[in-house]
Structures are given as C-alpha cells and as structure tokens.
C-alpha cells in the first residue's frame, strides 16, 4: 500500500458481484492506487462481505472530482427523499 489511507464503515444493503447479489457488510474507502482506472491514485470503494471471502466485492474507482460529485449527489437525493416524507 503506498498511501495507507483507508477507512471502513459498516453498511446495510446488497451488492451485485461477479457471482450475483450478496448481502453487504462493510464498505472500505481508500485513496490509493486503483487496479483499473487510469489514475495514479483514486478514491476506491469496495463494498464487501468478508464472511463470504475476498470475491464478495463490488468495486468502484473514482477520480477525486467524481467522488466529490457523487457524495454531493447522494446527499442531495437523501435530502430530497427526506423532504418528501420518505
């Protein structure tokens, strides 16, 4: 690991991995080298369920700009849902 910047958060929900849907248990959020994105460092989110092994993973690798835009969008959607009584 070259930056070692990582945080974990417990999550409830489902993710669709290579073997289909599975129950999510945790999200690992890191800023480190991506596997695929054409960036030296990326904001990586791995939605995982460690009890099901390393393959129970849904991964995204985002540029910093994209990650910040995603965070804003998630909050906007949640605020709107809350305002509409959901």
């Amino acid at each position, binding site marked *: 690991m*070259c930056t070692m910047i990582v945080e974990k958060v417990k999550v409830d929900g489902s993710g669709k991995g290579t073997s289909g849907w599975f129950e999510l248990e945790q999200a690992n959020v890191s800023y480190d080298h991506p596997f695929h994105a054409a960036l*030296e460092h990326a904001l990586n989110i791995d939605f*995982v369920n460690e009890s099901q092994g390393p393959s129970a993973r849904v991964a995204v690798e985002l540029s910093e700009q994209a990650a910040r835009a995603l965070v804003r969008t998630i909050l906007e959607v949640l605020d709107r849902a809350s305002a509409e009584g959901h």
Partner: protein
Amino acid sequence: MVRTDKYEGLLAETSAMPGAHGDWINAYLARPLGPGPFPGMVLAHHMPGWDEWYREVTIKFALHGYITLTPNLHFRAGHGTPEDVAAKVRGEGGIPDDQAVGDLTGALQYVRALLDSNGKVGIFGTCSGGRHAYLTVCRVPGFEAVVDCWGGGVVMAPEQLNPKTPVSPLEYTKDLACPILGIFGNEDKSPTPEQVDQHEAELKKHGKNYEFHRYDGAGHGFFYHNRPNYRQAQAVDGWEKVFTFLEKYLS
C-alpha cells in the same frame, strides 16, 4: 542475455514455501533449466497483489538466468483473484512489516538452499514491494543486492506509523548490508523526489554502496506495461540498469 545460438529453457510454476511464523504460503517459482549454478532472486510484489505482472516478471528474471521466487505476501488474506485479495488487504491497511520481512526471508532461505543455487540471492520489489525489499535487506543479513523500484513509504512521517508499520524503513539504513539500486520517476507522488533525496542522503551519511537513477517524464510504476503510467524508453533503460547491477553482484 538472450542469444540465437544457445539452448535455453525454464520451468515456472506455483509452489509453496515456509514464510513468517513458519506459515506455509504460496509462491511463484521460475528457474532456468540446466545444472547451474544459478544466482537467485526474490521478488516482493506490489500493492495490486500477487498478480499476472509479477508472474511475468518472475519469468523474466528466470529468462535472464536467475532462480526466482515470488512469495504471495497476501496469502493470509484468503484466495480469489489477485485484485479481490489485494483489495481486502488494502481495506485492512496493508500487511504487517514483520510478516512481510518473515515471508521474504523464507524465500531467501528457500532459493539459497536449492542445489543449483550459486549461493548469491538478490531481492527486487516495486511500489510497496520496493519498501518491503528495502526493509528486509536492512533487517535480515544474507541478501547480496537489492533493487528498490519506486518504493513508497521508505521515508515515513511519525504520524504515518502504526502497529503494522511501526518504524520508518529509513531508520534501518545504518544496518543495510548490501548494495542497493534505486529506480524512481521524477513525477512520482509516492515516493516524491524530495523523499528520494532524503533516502539518498541517509545512504550517503552511512557510507552505503548505492546507485540511484531518476527518470524525467515518468511517475509511479513506469515499468507496468499494462497501466497508463508505462513509459517505454524509461522502462527499457531501467530494466537494463537492473540486470547490469544484478550481474555485477550476483554472478
């Protein structure tokens, strides 16, 4: 050196070896065919894991005449694709330094014990593997040469230290007992050119045998031909430097 008039052959396969704490772990072994004796290499893989690039490079060293062993430093995280396993390790904040040093020391002992070994073993690593390689040669005697390719985190600030990485590798420089070749890109952010300067100054301060090459127009991981940061001219020159250095100290 590859020639058109010389027999060559090699064997490459997954194997197993005793690592840190006596744990048996996977390793990828590639070796030239023939009676030898051959010099040996241990490879410390990078953050993306015990992956295809490292298998290719293990074979590359064997093609150049080295018995080469690449331990799976992520073995204890479980099995799956190298990416999935490496992602799990990334989520855990990396592997403990003591464990990496133990695994790489086990690889040294394995290679040196082979009957066709000439008794001289070097170590090569890139990215976190460059850091692990440096840490190992500083803490464990027995290696004859080390190649550190853009090892991030050799220079660590106190706030970066944690139970898995309790000591900045730079602190061990006084104990380095073999020559070191360093390959770096001047556009790298980990290590930065300033951190490479600090590393070089520490080597100089302790009178170590070192050779650093810094490449303009290259950033992190510029040997990785499967990534956009690959830089052809710099990588070709860098590989030449690697094999020239190893021939000098391991033949």
